[in-house]
């Protein structure tokens, strides 16, 4: 109960911190919308020559684009969020303060990243999706049931994304300059989440593997859950996400134990 309240307070603070940057939010909405239009016209051209590419018709492909724009900031598909801050704290030694507190490091950052994601979903996600829906013919579901499945799928997308970025950020304990690693993490996410091109479009073995990787849980799966195109069922998609979340969070926990032991014993 106490833990729940603490983490809720942390999430709320994460939400508030991002809410203070109004100009950045407005700029983000603008960028997402422009990016959405560029991708949308590219996809229109692509689907015009290859109808039913990746098993999507054109309006489904466009729905995928705008869902991606809605999740881009929330699920930190191009990196960022807590990752930069955590990494900076490792680099400058402020992480000592975090270690000193009566908290669990992973849970703390997860709560704060969920708060951030909640803000960015509302602040940066809703508007681009609405603009996309007005400007194009999207295959958004009419049934509330699908939207109700979409919500937990988005939550799991954020958790998986967090768990991945947490692993990358922890590497900062060994590599003091992890900017290259952060860039790699962002690149992998951009590509394997389906942000640039739905993973269903990837041919052969590459496609099969890409769809099994954890990044696919951050966009491909939520988009399919929303459109009802998830192979199997929406439930299978959610289970896939939850499985990766569990595996990656556990891995993060193990790596965290090793990393903090290193700091505690060697002084970082």
């Amino acid at each position, binding site marked *: 109960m*106490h833990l729940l*309240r*603490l983490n809720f*307070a*942390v999430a709320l*603070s994460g939400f*508030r*911190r991002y809410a*203070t*940057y109004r100009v950045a939010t407005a700029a983000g909405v603008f960028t997402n919308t422009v990016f959405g239009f560029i991708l949308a016209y590219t996809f229109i051209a692509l689907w015009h020559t290859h109808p039913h590419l990746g098993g999507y018709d054109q309006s489904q492909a466009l729905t995928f684009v705008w869902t991606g724009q809605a999740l881009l900031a929330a699920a930190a598909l191009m990196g960022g969020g807590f990752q930069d801050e955590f990494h900076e704290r490792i680099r400058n*030694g*402020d992480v*000592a*303060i975090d*270690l*000193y*507190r*009566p*908290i669990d490091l992973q849970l703390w950052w997860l709560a704060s990243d969920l708060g951030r994601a909640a803000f960015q979903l509302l602040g940066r996600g809703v508007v681009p999706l609405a603009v996309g829906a007005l400007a194009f013919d999207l295959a958004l579901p009419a049934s509330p049931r699908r939207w109700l499945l979409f919500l937990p799928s988005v939550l799991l997308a954020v958790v998986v994304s967090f768990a991945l970025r947490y692993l990358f950020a922890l590497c900062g304990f060994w590599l003091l300059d992890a900017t290259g690693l952060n860039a790699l993490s962002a690149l992998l996410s951009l590509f394997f989440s389906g942000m640039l091109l739905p993973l269903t479009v990837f041919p052969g073995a590459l496609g099969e593997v890409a769809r099994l990787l954890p990044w696919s849980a951050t966009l491909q799966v939520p988009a399919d859950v929303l459109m009802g195109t998830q192979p199997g069922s929406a439930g299978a998609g959610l289970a896939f996400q939850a499985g990766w979340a569990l595996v990656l969070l556990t891995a993060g926990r193990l790596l965290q134990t090793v990393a903090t032991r290193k*700091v*505690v*014993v*060697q*002084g970082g």
Partner: protein
Amino acid sequence: MDDADGAFIDVRDLTKTFTVRRRSGLLRRTATRVHAVDGISFVLRRGEMTGFIGPNGAGKSTTVKMLTGILTPTSGRLRVAGVDPWRERTRLVRRIGVVFGQRTTLWWDLPLRDSYGLVRRMYRIPRARFEENLARCVELLELGDLLDVPVRQLSLGQRMRGDITAALLHDPDVLYLDEPTIGLDIVSKARVRQFLLTLNAERGTTVLLTTHDLSDIEQLCERVVVIDHGRLMYDGPLAGLHEVGRGERTLVVDLERELPPIEGIPGARTVRTEGPRQWLAFPASASAAPLVSRLAAEYPLVDLSIREPDIEDVIARMYAG
């Protein structure tokens, strides 16, 4: 629970050795050992306010980190409130407050008030107790107008006062302050010092204060622990530091006319002359009276005054020696 002999913080033969790997060739890396803390021992009693000083790189921050439990000692024994800080960190954390002057425990983008709200949840501070402690700190540290300001907009001195408050909301028994007055102006320093005195007097909080500002120590601490190169140089009352550091008092003598440097006064030596004025140094522990009567008998005295040894000089001499 304290140790049987009343020690609240008990440090015995504490060492910390860092292994630093450096690239020494294309592929070769050599490991060098840094003995940051090299066998120090001291004991702090409950309610004591102790100055912990030493030159840069002496091992002060490393010691404080070990006392808080975020760094394990390489060897030696360490007990805070009868508990090994590293092994039982979660138990001890609620009894310790820490301020690292160079870092902040506050959240950059949040108003102070929100940061304190998070601290309350982390430390599970009962609401009434929290409100009481906050109100007290706000009053004594004059934070009233700043509670709704995001931390990034606070000045250094304001932030430091905010940090000190954050470290005290959970009523710690012991407070470690690592350079809490660094970069503060005179007014802020005075406010922080007065606050620490009040805290120590009213709550009996044990305070270990690290600083490079010796006037902090002079005003706050009766006792000092001096370390250098990870070794204990001095542990005792502030006054006793003068003797150890070969503290000297100075007799400033104005003569009727310019004379050669005064000689032949036992226990004193002339360190400077300037026209009819001469400066004589003598041990801080010696009495000035026999010197003065000797001088008055042998020299044409017009005026004289005594200068107390400067603690900065004393420390500087200790570090150098």
